[in-house]
């Protein structure tokens, strides 16, 4: 799985209709170790799992957390 560093992040409280049930959730732009950047979700079942700029993260397999309309969206977790 890809690894990287959090370039920036936010926690969203007011969502588009399609994601309203997920609120609040965190998104981040991750600078990938192998080059380039990716925008993804941060997996966090508890607040402590949230990430900050500079944190190292690894891509995870989100399972059911990835709704069908989110095909291709990477999910990251703090290392």
């Amino acid at each position, binding site marked *: 799985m890809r690894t990287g560093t959090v370039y*920036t992040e*936010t926690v969203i*409280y*007011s*969502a588009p209709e399609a994601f309203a049930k997920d609120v609040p959730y965190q998104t981040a*732009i991750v600078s990938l170790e192998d080059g380039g950047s990716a*925008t993804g979700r941060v997996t966090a079942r508890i607040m402590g799992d949230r990430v900050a*700029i500079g944190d190292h993260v690894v891509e995870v397999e989100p399972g059911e957390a990835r709704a069908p309309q*989110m095909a*291709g969206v990477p999910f990251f977790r703090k290392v």
Partner: protein
Amino acid sequence: MSPGVEVCNLFGSPTPELCCILLIFRHMRSVAVIGAGKTPFGIFADRDLRSLAVEAGEKCLRNGNVTPGQIESFYLGNFAGPAFVGQNHLAPYVSTALGIRDVPATRVEAACASSGSAFFHAWAEVASGVYDVVMVVGVEKMTSRTTGQVNQILAEAGDCSGEMLAGNTFASLFAMIARRHMYEFGTKKEHLSSVAVKNHANGALNPDAQMRKVITLEQAMNGKPIADPLNLYDCSLISDGAAAVVLAPYDRAREFTDKPVRILGIAQASDYVALDQKADITTFPAVRRASEKAYAMAGVTPRDIQFAELHDCFTIAEIIACEDLGFAPRGEGGPYAFEGHTARTGERPINTSGGLKSKGHPVGATGVAQICDLVLQIRCQAGERQIPRHSLGLAENLGGSGATCVVSILGEV
């Protein structure tokens, strides 16, 4: 020495590209805004898109003493009429309702810079001599949708195959920009909030503003969270409204009005739509590129600009615009706002209209509304919010998270 270099040296502009622009601009006709008009911005349950556009258009024609039959080309700036109100083919839909027949009627879409871009293309048409009298209307009718639906429709101005699939909103994109700006430059939450306090204070004096309410710094810092670090008070409004201007060659302007306002410099620039494709999200290259060209055309420097209408879709956007336009050094836009330099009584008043934050932000109307607000100040017709130094103003209209920018410099000379 080539003539280009001479022109260049005259304005102290270094790049060959700018030299070319200056040479081209010297062969273009000077263009003036001869009429301007807009609707109030707000939530108008009983008004449809066309009636708003027609109200602004008729006010504008009256203001410029222009008849519908004199309009030779018509532009409509609109972001998402099809999604918001289920109507497409909007340019002739509006122009014919204004009594403008037969002429080219063209819709321009560039997210929140839709009518700024329409204004740029109308200017080019007059400057190049294709037509003389050209009208631009900007309109958006947003409030017939729920906030969730509006978020969804606005999100389509981002990259829907990437960043938006993750659940981002426009607020969250600008929240990520704010986070990075805070991390790199020490920008503080109170800096962001001070922009909201200032723009609300200005909007309270604008009879056409949607939210005429003075707020305190404490209120602004403790609004309902939207996307950290942005709260409700950092976000512009969801609005209905329209704005219109008519352009003509400066040489013919006095056939219509004794108060023409000259377009001294104008440029549009573009950049990536997706935020994660940019090397640095704390600056908007399109704003830098467009303003460099506009300054060069006008033969002015940032220091000369007396007041401005900037695209404060979110408080952080006004702070970064001040840096990219050269009003404040890079990274210092936060303190620049917080210390009062941009207040109505400061050295360079910004958003005396109340900005998108307080005046309202009917997306497709915003670019032309900014031009109308510059015209009001330059003509000394801004009422209670009139500022004393009002002869040279700048408007910056930003689309998406910086993929389109139009910068216009207007003056009374």
